[in-house]
């Protein structure tokens, strides 16, 4: 039985691609390259649990001490709201008129550029400074920024050693905070529930009345001693600098106790006579943070929050900070400080991503097993290979376009997984069918492969474009939810296009390497009237 080399002219892009790459020595190299860039993208891309939602907005805070809510509403909130209304792209304006302060919260439509929106808001407030009432203080414009505002790590520090003073505790935590701030890609660190050191002068009202003193006097007396003034920079006759100055007279708690307030009946009255003075914490700050665990029971704690810079990998930043904390542990131990890691978004993001990557792998394996049953081992192998190639290409495109790996991106992959093996299945199925068709005996392998690929090219293209078209309008869904789901309309079409390319390029190539024409005697198929060569197979021209 002689084989005839046919010059099959592919009509569709599918056949053309198959033809080009069927004999190209670069094809296997291209496959390796694809897998490599995919793997690299998976490793480098920033990982996070939820996708970034570009919420832009901010708060304008205008304090006006002593004003009532109604007053604030009329002179601050209403005029401000009117002015902010003039900004384009603002969706909601929330005005809050409280005692002593007016706050206007501005929220832009989802998806507005954050930097420009912040500038617009700042501009508008600054332009209208003259409208603010006389006794209002400088307005504060505070844009909100999810990236920086939502900490990825929180630590609760507590005192192990009860003898450790609050002041010393605060000082040590501040040092840790400073060190963490130096870690690469850490943006903001903040303390919650921390109490600063403070000297408290607590005056006894009874004694005050007894000595006929006023609080104002004490205030004055303390203020006149505890002052910081820059040093004097004088010059000598020969123009050399001599520096001298009066330092702050308060060096210790005893200095405070011995401040003289007044004379009463000829004898001096000191602070210690009318007040208790302590080296303590800021008692006027009512805020307090506590921690409970089974081992510790309830203890006061200071929470240290760590945020990361936008666009950086939460997993890496968290690991770096945790490594630093591990390093500091012995020192903390020595000082009598313990800590509990109370939030780790880095781990959460990594777990979420890894779990989904596992799901992806399991799914690929299940599909591969299914294909072995229906198509045979080699065919299944070919289709299974296309999946990582397609995902790799999609991941790379996602990386190039500045996306991050998050739950939704991976769901987009899972969603497309069922769809993207389709192209390869359809191609391999058609190759399989053509190989087993009776006229296969006349044709050489290459022709069958190209022809089989080319045959289903047009309908597969149209059908894939149809699926892509269903995804495109989803990119225009507005609001939070639309923004949240964006990775799906962004990645599914890319994956589908990639699936077409990979199916057309690699499926015929791998088929050539792995599949063989079955040995079979040709027989009459019921709708084959007479033996004739396919019209596109020109025997004379084909014998090269």
């Amino acid at each position, binding site marked *: 039985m002689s084989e005839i080399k046919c010059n099959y002219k592919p009509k569709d892009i599918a056949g053309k691609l198959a033809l080009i790459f069927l004999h190209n020595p670069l094809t296997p190299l291209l496959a390796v390259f694809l897998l490599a860039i995919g793997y690299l993208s998976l490793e480098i891309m920033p990982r996070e649990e*939820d996708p970034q939602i570009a919420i832009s907005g901010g708060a304008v805070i205008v304090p006006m001490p002593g004003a009532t809510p109604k007053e604030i*509403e009329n002179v601050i909130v209403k005029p401000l709201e009117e002015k902010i209304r003039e900004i384009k792209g603002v969706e909601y*304006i929330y*005005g*809050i008129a409280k005692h002593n302060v007016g706050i206007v919260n501005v929220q832009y439509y989802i998806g507005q550029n954050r930097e420009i929106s912040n500038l617009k808001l700042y501009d508008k407030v600054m332009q209208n400074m003259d409208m603010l009432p006389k006794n209002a203080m400088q307005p504060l414009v505070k844009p909100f920024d999810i990236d920086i*505002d939502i900490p990825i790590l929180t630590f*609760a520090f507590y005192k192990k050693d009860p003898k450790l003073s609050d002041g010393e505790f605060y000082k040590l935590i501040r*040092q840790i905070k400073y060190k963490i701030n130096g870690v690469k890609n850490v943006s903001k660190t903040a303390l*919650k*529930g921390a109490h600063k050191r403070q*000297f*408290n002068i*607590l*005056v*006894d*009202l*009874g004694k005050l009345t007894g000595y006929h003193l*006023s*609080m*104002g006097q*004490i205030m004055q007396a*303390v203020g006149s001693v*505890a002052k*910081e003034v820059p040093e004097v920079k004088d010059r000598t006759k020969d123009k050399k600098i001599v520096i001298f100055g009066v330092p*702050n007279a308060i*060096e210790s708690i005893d200095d405070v106790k011995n401040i003289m307030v007044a004379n009463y009946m000829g004898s001096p009255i000191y602070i210690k006579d009318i007040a208790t003075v302590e080296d303590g914490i*800021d008692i*006027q700050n*009512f*805020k307090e943070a*506590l921690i409970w665990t089974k081992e510790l029971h309830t203890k006061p704690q200071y*929470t240290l*929050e760590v945020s990361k810079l936008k666009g950086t990998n939460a997993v890496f930043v968290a690991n770096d900070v945790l490594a630093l904390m591990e390093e500091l542990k012995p020192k903390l131990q020595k000082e009598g400080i313990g800590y*509990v890691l*109370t*939030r780790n978004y880095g781990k959460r993001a990594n777990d979420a991503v890894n779990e989904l990557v596992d799901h992806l792998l399991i799914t690929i394996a299940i599909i591969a097993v*299914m294909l072995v049953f229906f198509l045979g081992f080699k065919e299944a192998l070919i289709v299974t290979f296309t999946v990582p190639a397609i995902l790799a290409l999609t991941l790379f495109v996602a990386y190039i376009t500045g996306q991050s790996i998050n739950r939704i991106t991976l769901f987009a992959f899972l969603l497309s997984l069922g*769809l993207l*093996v*389709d192209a390869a*299945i*359809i191609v391999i199925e058609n190759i399989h069918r053509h190989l087993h068709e009776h006229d296969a005996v006349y044709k050489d392998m290459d022709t069958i492969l190209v022809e089989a690929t080319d045959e*289903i090219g*047009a*309908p*597969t293209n*149209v*059908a894939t474009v*149809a699926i892509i*078209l*269903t995804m*495109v309008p*989803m990119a225009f*869904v*507005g609001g*939070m*939810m639309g*923004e949240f789901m964006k990775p799906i309309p962004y990645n599914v079409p890319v994956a589908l296009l990639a699936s077409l390319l990979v199916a057309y390029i690699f499926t015929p190539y791998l088929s050539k390497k792995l599949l063989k024409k079955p040995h079979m005697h040709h027989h009459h198929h*019921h*709708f084959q009237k007479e033996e004739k060569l396919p019209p596109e197979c020109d025997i004379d021209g084909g014998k090269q």
Partner: protein
Amino acid sequence: MKKFEKFIYSILDSRPKKALVITLILATLAASVILIPTKVVLVKMLPGKSANTFSVYIDLPTGSSIEETKKVNECVLDILKKEKEVTDIESFLGMGAPLDYAGLVKGSVYKNSENVAEMVVNLTDKHERQERSYNMVHRLRPVIQSKCEPLKKGTTIKLIEQPAGPPTLAAVVAEIYGENNKERRKLAQKVADIFRHTDGLVDVDIMEDDIFRKYHLKPNIDKIQKSGLAVEQVQKILYLAFEGMDAGVKNSEEYPAQIPLFLRLSDETRRVEDKSLQAIKAKLQSFELMNQKGMMVPLLEVVDIVPVTNEPTIMHKNLRRYTNVIAETDLVSQVYPLLDARAKIIENLGKEYKIETTDYLFNLRLTDKKTGEVFDLKWGGEMKVTLDTFRDLGLAFIAALILIYLLIVVYYKSYTLSNIVMAGSFLSIIGVIFGHWVADLVTADTFFLTATSLIGFIALMGISSRNSILLIDFAKALMIEKHIPKRRSIAIATATRARPIMLTAIAIILGSALLASDPIFGGLGVALIGGTVAAVVVSLLFIPVLMDNAKAMDFTDEQTRSEEEFK
């Protein structure tokens, strides 16, 4: 293969059989669609997500002290301590907890008063834990609320779960707009009462300051001037004595911050007995101020103490005064309790207000029958996001339909063939809805039709149109190239294409199997599985019937062989 070909052919060859297929398909379509209005399949934007953490927000009435807040916090802590799965709890008294997605829109950052607290409850890892976090919250909520809320009247304790998708202020938010502060307050009370008596709504709260009593020390200007004092001085000294101020600083080189010298009356001497006018007077009795001449003037000589009520904070949204009434849902979708509450509002408040429906879907306008004052009730929070999302996804779906339609018209240059493909695609909705019904039957928790289900449905449109396109294309090729009669071509095409259609369907079903077990994307998985099954049935039975009936499908010519050859 041959059998299936015969089977299809037998259907196509008989008019009553074709009619039966069409009626059956349309009947199942009707049966599936009816599951939505009859609430057999429930709708929700996003289902709950099991997390390793949840928060507790404690709100005491405005004007409560930090000590009272601490007491409520301890009460909650005592209950949570007994939970085996709780690893650690952080309490933040007088402020918000470190910001998270939920806190971002729930105003955590702005919390800065003695009457609030937030708690973060960390649990053991969700994979090693039996109980899902939302079930745990569901179980603990009534225990905590019934035990700790009565500690101080007017206290609300909310258990906040991490949102599965984008965060919202609350599941149900009724924004009540109206210029008259007092009347709006009253209406908000009534709406909140209705919420409290609606099944499925929990953590009901009115977002406004409570009204409490306070005192004004009204300066008697004449007396103040005569005694050589100034009003400003009175204000300042009073603040200094009872609240305290920094009198100076001690700068320290060994310490990371300046150390202020804080001056205030001692705690024993500044405390007032109780909240009565007498107690305030008694406390200020001995308080004296020094005038310009250095003489001491008793404070009570120059001021009159009058009890007043506080002025609550005024809130605006988009330049209108409003009050929020919020509620969370407990394991159920917010759609149905909201509709219940809305019906109750119309029923119960109908006596006092004339109620009309306004602009957007469920919003109401209430006009006071006596005064003619107008109040607007608009639904916000998750409900608005849900409606907006479903509306947008619906539009996206229609746009997708139109795009596919045009694409196929361009490809086949025939409207009829496009119609066939579209009909086939749309029918996958049968599988989507039945899939959810079955999923709801087999799972312990309610399985909702969610926004992700809709995405699945949209994706299915493309998948099932692919099946139809492959069928039509193959049948067309058989007719043109092999000169096989139309009916036989369709049967052969269906039988040949059945294999790849089944294969891709199985790939999708297996691919979505793990998706279906995910709390958030379960809807998508179920939609894909159910829809694909439906799509296979539709494309292998219904589409051939439609193709046979369509004139546009006729590509036969004089060369076409007779039907007899294939019998």
